[in-house]
């Protein structure tokens, strides 16, 4: 599958929400989409193109905006594809993919606590690796290493 194929398959379903398909070495391409059409994009890739395996969701902080990169795998095409959407830093939220791929659950929890990207309609958006009540987002560029920080940890009793 080539970037052109992807564009051809996705354009009718997404229209202008598809911002472009860039080639990416070693994958079928990097699909850039508008976050308002997130679920439609997920559905299109999952149902139509057979990308049934969501491998990874990573957030990148580009200071001015943040990028969410989804890595998908298709068993039929035996190829990876990247989905990418950008969100502004002051309004960082995107629709959750966990309705389409259940495996998104933990990846989104991690992206939320690390890069501060909120995933709407996520079933269980709470801290995964960091302690509950942790007020920082460590993988933001503004979070500097070697700086003392105040850490307040709430202990949960069961």
């Amino acid at each position: 599958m080539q970037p052109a194929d992807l564009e051809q398959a996705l354009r009718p379903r997404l229209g202008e929400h598809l911002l472009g398909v860039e080639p990416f070495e070693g994958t079928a391409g990097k699909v850039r989409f508008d976050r308002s059409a997130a679920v439609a994009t997920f559905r299109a890739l999952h149902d139509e193109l057979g990308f049934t395996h969501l491998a990874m969701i990573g957030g990148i902080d580009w200071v001015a905006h943040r990028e969410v990169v989804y890595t998908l795998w298709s068993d039929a095409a035996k190829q990876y594809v990247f989905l990418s959407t950008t969100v502004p830093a002051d309004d960082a939220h995107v629709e959750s993919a966990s309705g389409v791929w259940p495996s998104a659950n933990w990846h989104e929890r991690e992206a939320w606590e690390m890069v501060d990207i909120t995933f709407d309609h996520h079933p269980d958006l709470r801290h995964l690796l960091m302690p509950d009540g942790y007020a920082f987002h460590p993988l933001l560029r503004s979070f500097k290493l070697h700086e003392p920080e105040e850490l307040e940890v709430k202990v949960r009793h069961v």
Partner: protein
Amino acid sequence: MSEMWINMGPQHPMTHGLWNLRVRIEGELIRDVDPEMGYLHRGIEKISEDRHYNEVITLMDRCCYVAGLAWEHLYIRAAEQALHVDPPERAEYLRVLCDEFQRLGSHLMWYAAFVQDLGLMSPFLYGMRDRDLVLDLFQSYTGARMTYEYMRVGGVRNDLPPGFTASARKVLDWLSDRFREYDQLCLGSTIFRKRCDGLGVLKGPDAVHHGVTGPMLRSAGVKRDLRKDRPYAVYGQLDFDVAFADGADVTARYLVRMEEMRQSVRLLRQVLDWLDRHPGPVIAEHLPRWLGAPYAPIGLEGYLLKRNYPKGVGFSAVEEPHGEALAYVVNEGGEHPYRVKFRSPVFANLSAARTYLVGYHVADIPPIMGSVDVCVGEVDR
């Protein structure tokens, strides 16, 4: 008895690492589970943003203590793509050698821990004993038994010592004999079969849906192996079969891992033959040496930005012993990676815990989680 939550971890014999499996039980039946991670979180992705490309390798070994070289390989491939570097072929073969020996070591460690969870005491030590030979081999060419720091951007640190391939072949012969013994002790035991058959069932479609990869997925009949489906390094030139089973239960995972070890032996014999016949450089010749040691003018901030080194994004996918591991390295032209993101296979395998644990007994948790082969270092990173 009414329901209650129990915390299995973070200090618990079942966990094999620092994590907490919260289990809601009714009598001895599991009603719900909630894995709690993060006890081993060291912020490797964050620290990587503050390190030179080669210095990140020291962190990769700490990702997973049983599969350090596989993680090095994973990171190195992504970093090389981000930095536009091509390793020589011999280095690729050496990396495959590392990968496959690491798979052997990791699966032997898994075997030891898994049978220990079942209460089998002596095979635990047999597994550890035989893994020690693999560690000996690692020590003889990387210089360490667990934290190898062997690969470098553009190749590997050093070539094999003389006589290595002969020793390695002997180890492979010894291990091939041991696999039969392992099967006698496990599959040959009624109690083992009764404990493992039909346990922790995770059917193929569910597994794909929940992002489960590696031996857990292949035990459910899905033949997905990145070494075959998306050959990286030199796997395309090597002859091997993908191990898979249909049972989707603990026994099936056992069978898949044992078969994978046999296939690793088969792969390693081919790799050793190739290495014997093809001497050559192990690190790229035209390599920008600011990349790290040796003789690197590293530590001087802003040096690379002045040089206008081309930017790039690297992505690599490696079939780690636990499953599909991905790395995503963003090079923004600095001497540090701008962003490093890893996908740990165990992370996804654990996130599906509810699907394969609920409905079984408390006593089934150790074998099921043992068959998942949890390595917390790479989950928490």
